[in-house]
């Protein structure tokens, strides 16, 4: 009995410590956003009264609004384009599958093994030639189609009832109509899951934008934050506020759509 209680105690302690360590850096970020730089560096755990001051410095010294808008625009376009292209492909690979398409799918899956570092130079040269540096199209194009998303949609199409397609065909609906009017509404939760993952990836993406977003006015949030700490004197209160602003959208998205998030990550392994 005592042994059992001890095990329960250990269990809850381990989980509590792990949960606390997971959340603490984010709490620290929130608190620091309200403090003066000196207090942040001194490790103050109490909220300060410097939030407004930090915000003013941030607005004065950086193009935070333009960076926010760039991030929002790029991530939204990336998400919408990705979802359309990859879901229709995943649907196509499953519903109309034959030898040729199955083979193509397995070829596409090989792209997962291609490290981004290995292709960034040719990509940069291609986009330079096409005059797509510093543009949303440049940001979005390489990541619209991913084997991961296509695979995710192909796997979840297996749960889509074949009868729906057959009866829709009898009603005279075209193949594209079936996809948009039947498949998309029924597969809402798969779309939600895919959207959360894609949006977060695009919002947080760093290496590709660092290479192609060279003009100040096309910088996204991760680039802005990264630039902030590169200077000689770092105003940590202001930096932490900027970090908070960049993290909040994805955290909120995560808290609201946590179930879809977990589904989106694991859907491809089912």
């Amino acid at each position, binding site marked *: 009995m005592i042994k059992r209680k001890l095990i329960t105690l250990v*269990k809850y302690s*381990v*989980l509590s410590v792990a*949960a606390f360590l*997971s959340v603490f*850096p*984010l709490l*620290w*970020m929130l608190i*620091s956003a309200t403090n003066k730089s000196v207090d*942040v*560096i*001194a*490790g103050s755990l109490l909220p300060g009264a410097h939030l407004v001051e930090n915000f003013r410095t941030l607005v004065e010294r950086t193009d935070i609004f333009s960076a926010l808008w760039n991030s929002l625009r790029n991530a939204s376009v990336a998400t919408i384009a990705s979802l359309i*292209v990859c879901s*229709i*492909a995943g649907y*196509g*690979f499953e519903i*109309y599958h034959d030898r040729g398409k199955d083979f*193509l799918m397995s070829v*596409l899956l090989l*792209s997962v*093994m*291609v*490290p*981004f570092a*290995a*292709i*960034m*130079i040719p*990509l940069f040269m291609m986009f330079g030639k096409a005059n797509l540096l510093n543009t949303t199209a440049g940001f979005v*194009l390489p990541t*619209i*189609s991913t084997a991961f998303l296509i695979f995710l949609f192909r796997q979840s199409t297996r749960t889509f009832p074949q009868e729906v397609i057959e009866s829709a*065909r*009898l009603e005279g609906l075209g*193949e594209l109509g079936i*996809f948009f009017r039947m498949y998309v509404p029924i597969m809402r939760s798969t779309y939600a899951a895919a959207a959360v993952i894609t949006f977060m990836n695009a919002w*947080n993406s*760093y*290496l590709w934008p660092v*290479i192609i977003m060279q003009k100040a006015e096309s910088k996204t949030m*991760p680039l802005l*934050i*990264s630039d902030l700490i590169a200077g000689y004197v770092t105003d940590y209160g202001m*930096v*932490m506020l900027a*970090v908070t602003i*960049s*993290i909040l959208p*994805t*955290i909120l998205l995560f808290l609201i759509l*946590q179930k879809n*998030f*977990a589904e989106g*990550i*694991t859907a491809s*392994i*089912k």
Partner: protein
Amino acid sequence: MERELTPDKQKLEKMLMNEKPTNVMKLKVKQNMIGWGFVLPAALLIFTFYFYPIFRAFILSFQTGVGANIRFAGLANYKRIFLDPLFKTSLSNVFIYLVLQVPMMLFLALILASLVNDEKLRGRGLFRTALFLPCATSLVSYAIIFRSLFALDGFVNALLMNLSIISRPINWIGHPWTARILIVIALTWRWTGYNMIFYLAGLQNINFSIYEAAKIDGANAFSSFFRITIPLLKPIILLTTIMSTNGTLQIFDETMNLTNGGPANSTLSISQYIYKLSFVYSPRFGYAAAISFVVFIIVAILAFIQLKVGDER
């Protein structure tokens, strides 16, 4: 397999019977063509932005020079890689991260996942949310948060000094090994919850009664974990190992923003080195492409080995 026809299917069948066989053929061909139309845009994009560039990188790796002065260099770039101390440094750095971080993180994720999987656990949802939260943060952002937490006169040093664990503040990003350990700590914070999500999904497919039966047979929590959980999750453990290996070999955001590759390149990663060769130092696309291609081969070989080992056990 015989299946009873639904009314709709019967109707369709009748319709098809009345039609001329050539029309049925035409319909099949037409649907097949539409299917190709559905998959083609995605396929073309992947060919254009993954396969063509890797092919270009391969060609580029045999060239040298910049702009109009590009010329064929044979194997010169590859020969140079073996003599390049910075390449060796960056390669050994990512392998240090790989060896120190990946097994520890995956083991931790497995333990936490099996603890949270308990249906009788109170506050289960809250624990889950807290543990998953780090994977909603951007890599650049958390790197900066950790940088401030581990600053010379920052929170962590103050805490450790108050607890009398250390007598003088540790200059985390100032020494090679503490800087590497800092990267390992940060990576573990960010990715443990992410891997937990996979294990939890896998655990849901394991019937709870197996554990009950094991308990009746006298198995304790430890032996259930090692004898039931780990063997049954093997395919998912393999998947997460491959993903983490792949991710660690490509690490960029953290080493760039947390330690900036320093001190003296002791945390420099391969991706960062390729980036610097191409965009920071005077550009050497040919040489950088050769390194890129070596990375590609290493990633492929490691994934192959892991798949082989996973198959045999």
